[in-house]
């Protein structure tokens, strides 16, 4: 076993289920997906620190469902479907707010933080009995992990850590996201099924074509990458950084010299592949030696490979968490409320607070971002940049969705490097067949 990377996990036997266009275009499939999968899996509502005090709440949307998670007086969170049991109106607006009690905007029914109806106008006028004694907001299951509030609409679901498994729980946990601040919080609507984008994050085969700017400093395939299929349809991809990709051609290119320069490591004069691959090890050593003195206190919790490399966790179904030495990214395509050919794409960037650093490089390109909690921005893809790399990813969305509408397309023909997609889709099939 090589200890310069995540421990390899035995690859499960996959069935080889065909993956056709139906799941991306069919409204019927979309409904089954909602009932059998979305309503039975764990989702991230938001960051716990966004709701610091009792009564602070976050509203999260998954397809047509809307859920409120609210901070309680004891510091814990409770969650409810955001729908009034009286006539079905949404009770609260997102993305966040504060309520001592929730008040439905329609007839003024009020709910305490336990979700119980505590006040309605004209309570004596209900033949079926006073709603205050009987009704309430329907609860969802809520847990807090990685500084994030998660929810599951299925009251009989397994716990979040069982769902995620040990690898994801421990490895992402080591980054201590709960001590970070989210400096970028964007949502873009775009014209493709959500799985077009989750598929894209389940393979690095496209990187050399779609993201050529990553080639000078991140590995995408070969010996310095590793793909693992995790239980429950989750996946992990490890990609060494601070060294050029095996596929990189020509001289050393930015940003590698700048990245090395931050740790006073020069580019070798005759950069053979062997020398270039030593650089990553040199950076790990420097970061280990000098990290805490330079304010990078979070390095102390990370393994050597985590000091330089990128690991992508594809959490089933759609929470893609990419961890790197200096921040954590969430890339998340969420289903549209009704249209299988559209989705909402969330992009978060979270960084540790480092003494003396007021700004941090932006993954969205453009000027550095202030290290402070960012306000949410929502827009249509193309109206504004989501970041260079994310824009590139979304650029394939519409063309693939359009292709799925053609009888000229039969089924996916996947390379071994795209095996994570197969694992994801077979798990999705399990949910839809009721065998998950």
């Amino acid at each position, binding site marked *: 076993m090589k200890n310069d990377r995540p421990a390899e996990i035995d690859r499960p036997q996959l069935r080889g289920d065909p993956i056709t266009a139906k799941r991306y275009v069919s409204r019927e499939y979309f409904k089954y997906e909602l009932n059998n999968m979305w309503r039975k899996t764990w989702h991230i509502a938001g960051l716990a620190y966004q709701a610091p*005090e009792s009564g*602070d*709440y976050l509203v999260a949307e998954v397809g047509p469902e809307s859920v409120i998670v609210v901070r309680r007086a004891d510091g814990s969170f409770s969650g409810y479907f955001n729908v009034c049991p009286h006539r079905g109106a949404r009770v*609260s*607006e997102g993305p*966040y*707010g*504060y*309520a*001592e009690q929730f*008040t439905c*905007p329609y007839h003024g029914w009020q709910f305490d933080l336990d979700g119980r109806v505590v006040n309605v106008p004209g309570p004596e006028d209900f033949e079926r009995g006073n709603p205050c004694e009987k009704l309430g907001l329907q609860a969802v299951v809520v847990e807090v992990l990685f500084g994030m509030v998660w929810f599951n609409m299925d009251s009989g679901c397994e716990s979040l850590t069982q769902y995620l498994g040990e690898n994801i729980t421990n490895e992402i946990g080591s980054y201590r996201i709960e001590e970070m601040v989210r400096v970028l919080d964007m949502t873009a609507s775009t014209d493709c099924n959500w799985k077009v984008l989750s598929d894209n994050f389940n393979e690095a085969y496209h990187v050399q074509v779609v993201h050529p700017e990553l080639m000078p400093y991140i590995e995408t395939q070969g010996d310095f990458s590793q793909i693992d299929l995790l239980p429950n349809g989750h996946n992990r991809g490890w990609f060494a950084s601070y060294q050029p990709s095996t596929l990189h051609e020509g001289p050393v290119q930015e940003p590698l010299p700048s990245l090395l320069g931050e740790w006073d490591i020069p580019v070798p004069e005759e950069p053979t592949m062997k020398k270039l691959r030593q650089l990553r090890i040199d950076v790990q050593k420097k970061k280990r030696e000098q990290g805490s003195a330079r304010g990078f206190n979070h390095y102390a919790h990370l393994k050597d490979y985590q000091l330089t490399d990128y690991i992508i966790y594809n959490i089933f179904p759609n929470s893609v968490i990419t961890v790197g030495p200096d921040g954590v990214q969430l890339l998340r395509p969420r289903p549209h409320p009704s249209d299988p050919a559209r989705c909402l794409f969330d992009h978060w960037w979270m960084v540790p607070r480092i003494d003396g650093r007021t700004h941090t490089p932006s993954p969205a390109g453009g000027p550095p971002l202030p290290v402070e*909690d960012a*306000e949410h921005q929502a827009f249509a893809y193309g109206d504004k940049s989501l970041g260079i790399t994310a824009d590139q990813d979304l650029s394939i969305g519409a063309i693939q969705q359009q292709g799925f509408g053609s009888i000229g397309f039969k089924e996916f023909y996947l390379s071994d490097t795209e095996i994570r997609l197969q694992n994801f889709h077979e798990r999705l099939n399990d949910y839809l067949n009721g065998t998950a």
Partner: protein
Amino acid sequence: MIFHQVIELTKLANNKASVANLNGNEILVGVTNKGYFAVENNCPHQNKPLCGGRIRHGHISCPVHGMRFNLETGSPVGQLTNKSIKVYDARVNGDWLEVGELDE
């Protein structure tokens, strides 16, 4: 524009709104990372007081339904109303926050 002393600065805490009196009208004043503000103490969605609403990111959220309003511009965020809240000019003079009212 006539400015009136409405509250002592020492009574203001970051991201908290205080009720003050401007010529007999209740207003909300306070300070955020973006500076001092003074706005009407009324949510135009269902005409309930905004006081008690929490402030985040330069917006106050109505304690009744969570409608949010930008404290610099008064503009609403969300679908429950498209009406803005009234925003007054606020300035510091010595130890006091002063709020401006048009001289009519």
